[in-house]
């Protein structure tokens, strides 16, 4: 969002055409300009949220580089985000090492799970 909001219109951070393309990816929908504008704004908010939360996790672990594990932990701390995002994240290889010994190698070697990991497994990370 622009800094000088007093007179300038809001310029969404994301290209409008791309927003619409992604919206239409899995369904043949029509969307009016206001709606795609709001999606663009809310996506910006969501991205900032993810960035902020992931950075917090990285800081907690005293790391300077934000990694997927930090992102994953951040996602897990926010219920609405878990609902749609957790299954899509790559399965962490190292963080479940200690409890995953009984699992098949398939779960550890394939970075994206075929199916959601069991609930107890997700909580372990």
């Amino acid at each position, binding site marked *: 969002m622009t800094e000088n909001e007093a*007179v300038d219109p809001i310029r969404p951070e994301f290209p409008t055409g791309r927003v619409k393309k992604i*919206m239409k990816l*899995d*369904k043949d929908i029509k969307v009016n300009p206001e709606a795609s504008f709001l999606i663009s704004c809310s996506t910006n908010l969501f991205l*900032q949220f993810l960035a902020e939360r992931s950075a917090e996790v990285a800081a907690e672990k005293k790391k300077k580089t934000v990694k997927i594990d930090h*992102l994953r932990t951040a996602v897990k701390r926010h219920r609405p985000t878990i609902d749609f995002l957790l299954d899509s994240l790559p399965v962490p290889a190292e963080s479940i090492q200690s409890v995953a010994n009984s699992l098949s190698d398939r779960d550890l070697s394939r970075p*994206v799970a075929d199916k959601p990991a069991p609930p107890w497994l997700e909580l372990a990370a």
Partner: protein
Amino acid sequence: MERDDGFNRFYKHAKSSSGLNIIHGGSSNSNNNNGIVSTDNGNAANSNAMPPPCTVREQDQYMPIANVIRIMRRILPTHAKISDDAKLTIQECVSEYISFITGEANERCQREQRKTITAEDVLWAMGKLGFDEYVEPLTVFLNRYRETQNERTSLRGEPVLKRGMDYGSSIMMAPPYAPPVFHVGHHQQGFLDGTTAMGGYLRDGSGGAAGGGSSSSQASLTNNNFDPFGQYM
């Protein structure tokens, strides 16, 4: 296609709700069909697998990585870095989010037998899916957007009021979407700074002024010494 449950969840939604059988590819959906193939492999990019040659390009299913990184860098501490795979993953998360909200908004649209997703559908979907803390700032943005649109048309000499009221009444008068107090939830520090001015405007400027588009308030908005707090206090 059980590999990518995240996206498939929404594709299944699409199949049942819109009637378009995207997995098998209708005639108008050949791109989307590739989109599904590519999406799986888009995620596979994180797993070091190579996407098949006939995929949808990144620019068709993700936000530009440069935009994503730029927004993240503004939030992260100066010294912080982001791993490459985290960047890619977050890029995918962004698209997932868009699909998620869009799917819900689209369902509502279809339930009410409308064809076009509106701003109200989007706001409703936010609330329903647990992102209600976004609803207030989004309403502010929307009002600002409408102001901008109205200013543009009024400069061209076209009627303003009708356009402003078409979508305005249902959004700005409805308490669930536009509560009078501008209060943002837990992650306000990330973006609130940029919206304070608009938030003040919303709180002090009534919905009528924003949507009705009276010429005097518009003129004052375009004034260079526009002061959201001074104007209406």
